[in-house]
């Protein structure tokens, strides 16, 4: 189909200013300390990885960033705005999107609707207008449908548009999850183990999508991943967590040679 003018701004890859900074965040559930005084920052357009053994508090970190959990101490600054705690949807409005470790798709809805839902926070038409589905509402619906179709093309999901998300194979669900996150045109994208349980081929595809998103759409990426190979390949900088503490932070090479990290992993594997 003919490509209409789009809101997705294409631009080359250039790591910019600090967009997100996490400052001394601590989080606990009852007695369990999930995070203790963790601080790091994320630059615009970069790919930032958070790694660490299981139970290191990686997912909790993401949940804190987009407001699912509220830290007891510390604060988060996103684009010059400070929060001690915010609601997930506020985060979404500010442009923080995320995918989930164990996929959280809307199983009852079609792939199309799942991704469309990702654009909900950009849709304005009122209840009555929707009910009558007259001019503006319908126009809006179509306009956003076009955006979504671009994402569907981008993620090569064309054949599955009308399929129920719940019925898709695992790999594709992960892809839809990514698509839903991208649909909101986020400034920053939090990926929680986007490649967990994938075979090599799928992983390669996923890597491609992530990198494309990163440099074509200029989305900042924060990802959690276990596959060291992948992490080292695609990420600019890496934070390492262990038992809720930050034990290392730097470029892949720095981290690779960091003693604490090595021990942590050896310790974990023993």
């Amino acid at each position, binding site marked *: 189909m003919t490509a209409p003018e789009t809101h997705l701004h294409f631009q080359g890859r250039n790591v910019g200013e600090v967009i997100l900074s996490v400052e001394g965040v601590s989080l606990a559930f009852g007695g369990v300390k999930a995070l203790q005084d963790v601080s790091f920052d994320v630059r615009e357009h970069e790919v930032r990885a958070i790694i660490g053994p299981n139970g290191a508090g990686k997912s909790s970190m993401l949940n804190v960033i987009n407001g699912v959990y509220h830290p007891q101490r510390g604060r988060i600054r996103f684009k010059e705005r400070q929060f001690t705690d915010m609601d997930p*949807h506020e985060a*979404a409005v500010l442009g923080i999107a995320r995918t989930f470790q164990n996929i*959280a798709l809307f199983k009852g809805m079609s792939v199309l609707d799942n991704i469309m*839902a990702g654009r*909900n926070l950009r849709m304005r038409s009122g209840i009555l207008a*929707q009910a009558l589905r007259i001019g503006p509402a319908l126009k809006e619906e179509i306009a956003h449908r076009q955006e979504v179709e671009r994402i569907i093309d981008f993620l090569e999901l064309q054949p599955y548009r009308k399929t129920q998300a719940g019925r898709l194979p695992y790999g594709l669900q992960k892809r839809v999850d990514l698509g839903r996150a991208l649909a909101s045109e986020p400034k920053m994208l939090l990926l929680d183990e986007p490649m967990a349980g994938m075979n090599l081929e799928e992983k390669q595809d996923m890597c491609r999508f992530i990198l494309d998103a990163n440099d074509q759409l200029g989305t900042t990426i924060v990802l959690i991943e276990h596959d060291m190979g992948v992490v080292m390949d695609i990420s600019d900088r890496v934070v390492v967590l262990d038992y809720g503490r930050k034990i290392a932070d730097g470029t892949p090479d720095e981290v690779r040679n960091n003693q604490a990290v090595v021990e942590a992993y050896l310790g974990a594997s023993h």
Partner: protein
Amino acid sequence: MLYRENGQFKSTYAADLQMLPILQDRLFMFGLIAFAFLVVPFAASDYLFLSILIPFLILTVAAIGLNLLVGYCGQISIGHAAFMAVGAYAAYNLWLRVPWMNFLVVLVLAGFCAAAAGMIFGIPSLRIKGLYLAVATLAAQFFSDWVFARVKWFTDYAHSGSVSTAPIDLFGWTIDTPTDKYLFLLAVLIVFTILAKNLTRGHLGRAWMATRDMDVAAEVIGIRPVYAKLTAFAISAFYCGVAGALWGFMYLGAWEPLAFNLTLSLNLLFMIIIGGMGSILGSYFGAAFIVALPIILNQVPQWFGIPISTATASHLEFMIFGALIVLFLILEPHGIARLWAVGKEKLRLWPFPH
């Protein structure tokens, strides 16, 4: 004509966004509507109108309303007859105290009153989920039962606490005979069906379904649960409010609070479960099933001239009704609507199943 969609390519999104993308479906639907408007009025008897069709049409509106809440937004309510009551009494008082007001306006306003009530009793849904919420909604039921029985103003100080209405006059058309009522209600139902269908296809509908399928994820992608849930409660209650007003004015004519008791609420729930949750069409099937079944069960013995006492007959009615409910839940948990869909799939492949 074969039931096929191949060869029907959508060149625009607008075309793809139609309510019934398949040509044959559209034709069938128009045919059905034409039949309902042009043939039924002459074919059906008063009894069929008054005891089956009219209640069916009204309760379908209510069932659609409840389905928006339970089927689409995933919030269970066992108290929706309360909102029908609110609608009915709101309509009665408007009709009584503002005689010049057009009945359509009365209906809409009644709906809004119900919607307000719906939002209030929807507030717990922000804190509690699932069955807890379901039981909590009973509060609405019992509170409305009480309020309309006690606060005399609602019943215009009628010493019996029972209110009664007169035939409605709409733009000079007095809706009095069963046929009139049927036609009016049919029109109302069609309008409300289209509105509901559109809502569920819009971004509000997606917000509801997202909240239903995975509330945390929904919030993460920027859907405010407060908004999704309360709109669902409000709109659902709006539908029930309108249905309630119609139930009072078009079906009962005179009623007391008991007319909107728990049994009605439960029947509404049955309708959407049997019909199919999250399916507008299902609401139709469900309403038809629940309206017709007891009446039929109750009369089967007579048709076949089986000598059986009234008591036994109605006991049997209870038992068979209950058994059928369970049977349905076991055989087709997704309701009649699913059967319908499966049937269509088969038809689509016919006569070349592969």
